[in-house]
Structures are given as C-alpha cells and as structure tokens.
C-alpha cells in the first residue's frame, strides 16, 4: 500500500502557522543554522522538522532559543540545548540561552512533511502512517511498514525504544519497526 498522497498538497493549520512564523523572523540565518542540529535520538531529523523548535531571537549578540519537549521525561532535551549552544558558537554567537516552554504542548502535528518523509526513510513510521485513528492505538491498529509498505502489521508494545514511539512488527517482511506515536 502506498502512503496517501493528496493531489493538492495540504498543510495542517499548525504546520502553516509554524512556517509563517519562521518566514517572518528577522534572523533567518539562525533558523538555517539550526537546520543542521539534529535530534540526538533520531539523527535523521532536524529540530525544526520534528517540530520542537519554536522561536529564535537575537538581541545584542545574545541569542535566545525556545524549544518544547516532545515528552516531559525526554532525556534528549539537555543534549539538544547543548547542541544548539555549540552550533551558535560555531557561527560566532557566544551567548545562547535555551528556554524550554511547556505551553502550548508539543504535538506531532508540528512535524513537517519533510520530517515525516525522513522519519519513514529512517525506518520509523510517522504518526500519519497509522491506518485509521492514530489517536487510539489498540491491538487491531495497522500501520504502514516503513520498510516494505505493507499494512499487515501487529502492535507489539505501545512503548518502544523511546517514550515517543510504539513497537510494531511487519507480518509481510517480518521486520520490527517503531511508530512515532501521535500525541
């Protein structure tokens, strides 16, 4: 089964608002700089594409970056703050403050289309590859296998290798894979 491809690409309201916010920023070069900073747990995805990067401000050579955690216990947040500070130091910004903002709470809706495709290529099913309702996983939930695209899959555990993923196995190619859970 092929992923559903709308003829006219549509964006969710959340995605559109994020992109517009970024376009209106007065420091586009800093957003571009952070496109090279990846999620330490999923190195295929940039902070922007996974949707946790919310704002960048520059004031008198002092940068302030606002991020939001995917899951509240996510141990990657400290590493991410450090990676942001290092990336900015490399382009000459010595002082960076990283703020973690809880509200509004992160949702998988903020993940970009590019991010979803990269996730799939990396071997992790994005939340929109759930066939049916992604919000209510159950033992009958089918997900398109990121390896062979079969939808003959079985939920193994709602908690996978990290808090944000559920574990599935594909009954066609017999490979296990993670689903990035809708939240």
């Amino acid at each position, binding site marked *: 089964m092929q992923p559903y491809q709308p003829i006219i690409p549509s964006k969710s309201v959340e995605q559109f608002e994020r992109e517009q916010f970024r376009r209106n920023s007065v420091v586009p070069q800093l957003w571009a700089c952070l496109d090279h900073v990846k999620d330490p747990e999923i190195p295929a995805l940039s902070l922007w594409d996974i949707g946790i990067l919310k704002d960048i401000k520059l004031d008198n050579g002092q940068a302030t970056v606002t991020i939001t955690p995917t*899951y*509240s*216990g996510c141990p990657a947040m400290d590493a991410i703050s450090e990676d942001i500070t290092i990336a900015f130091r490399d382009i000459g910004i010595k002082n960076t403050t990283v703020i973690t903002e*809880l*509200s509004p709470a992160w949702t998988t809706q903020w993940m970009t289309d590019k991010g979803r495709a990269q996730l799939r290529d990396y071997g992790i099913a994005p939340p929109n590859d759930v066939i049916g309702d992604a919000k209510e996983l159950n033992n009958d939930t089918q997900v398109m296998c990121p390896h062979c695209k079969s939808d003959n899959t079985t939920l193994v555990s*709602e*908690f*996978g*290798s990290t*808090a944000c993923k559920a574990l599935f196995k594909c009954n066609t190619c017999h490979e296990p894979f993670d689903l990035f859970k809708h939240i």
Partner: protein
Amino acid sequence: MTQTNTNQDIIDYTVRLGDDAIVIGHRVSEWISNAPFLEEDIALGNVALDFIGHARMYYGYAAELTNKTNGNDDTTEDDFAYLRDERQFQNHLLHELHKGDFAYTTIRQLLIDIYNKYFLEKLKDSSDETLAAIAIKAAKETRYHCRRSKDWTLRLGDGTTESHQRMQTALDDLWGYSHELFEQDELEQRLVALGVAVDCASLKADWLAEVSAIIEQATLTVPTQEWAVRGGRQGYHTEHLGHLLTQMQFIARSFPDAKW
C-alpha cells in the same frame, strides 16, 4: 491570607505533586531488567521516565517559585528530589508501597493512572498557568498509561487461575490505600478556593465508576472491606519510602553537587 502565605501554599502543593510523581516513577523504574519480557521491560522504563519527567516539571516550578519568594536563585529541582528526608516527602502512600509482583504493579498503575486522568483534566483549568501547562503536557502521556494498565488488567484478571488470583490479591491489598487520593487537608482546601488546586474529592465518583467497570470486565471483584490507610500528605509514611529514598538519594548525597 497574605500573598507570601499563598505563594508558600502553592510551592507546598506543587512539591506534593512532584513527590507523587517521583516516588511512583522510581518505583516503576525498579522493574527495569526485571520485567516479564523485553517489550514490557521497555514499556515500564518509558512509563517510569514519563513520571520522572512530570516530577521534574513540578519540582522545577517549585524551585522557581521558591527563588522568587526568597529573592535568590540557589534552589533547584534536585534539592526537592535528593535533599529532603522521609518525613518531608508528602506523596500518597499508594505510590511508595513496595514493587510487589507484576499483578501488584499492574493494579497499582491502574488505580493511579485512572486517578491521574481525572486529576490532570481538572488541573488543566487551574488558575495557576504553569500548573495548567504541566497538566496539559502530562495528560497526553497519561492516556497511553491508562490504556496499558487497562489492557494488562483485563489480560491478567481474565487470564489463568494463577494470574486471576494474584490480581485479586493485589487489588485487595491495595484498595485501602486508594481512599487517601480523594482526601484534602486545609492547605489543599485553601488552594481549591483560589482555583489553584484540584478538588480531588470531586473526582471519586468518576474514578470509582471507571475503575470498577474495568475490574468487573477483568472478572475481578471490587473490594468491599472497609479499611483505609492514610497519612502520606502529612509526611507519615510506610516503611517502604525510607528504603526507596536511600537508593534514590545515595549518589546525590555521597557526592554533593556532582555533575555528569
């Protein structure tokens, strides 16, 4: 009531919520490498991590408020987690009870997860914006916890004779600790009046209806014996909390201010 007193009330309340989260988070983490099979081991690790994440949010906010009240910046989330003694912890007793067998953990998680579902739904409306933001974040994760606890309760309750028996025993052993979840002392009543705290007594009917329905569907019997143990919110604990703290706080106390 002065503003300072109210601030202190909010700090104390936030720390209580943090205590509940860290104690159950640590308890669940004791399953890591001991769970019945690998996938469940990973699931329990993730659930524990979620609770520890909630504790960090609560303690972090309590530290921020403490610093604001005192006009300094030297209190951190770690002070609440690692540098307080047993009597200073104000978690519910249900959270601290020993790890028990897998049935015991499953029943305890069912009681706590369903409670959290209703509790966080109300905390979302708190007049304190930070507590409301924490609740919105935590509620999303709690949905997954509830589903997992319910699935296991059904599977083990309506399972083999052995699993059924163990589940019923766990339920009978834990039931008397659930009443405390719905009781409020003066501090919480003051904050309920201000719209900050959740009126947890009002959650009981919904909680009982949902938990009872799951228990009955799992072919188990809702306990009817009248007994209750209470005291966690006043700092009176079972013998289990001290042991938990020795393990949880050992590194931080042996190597003060150590950094990774």
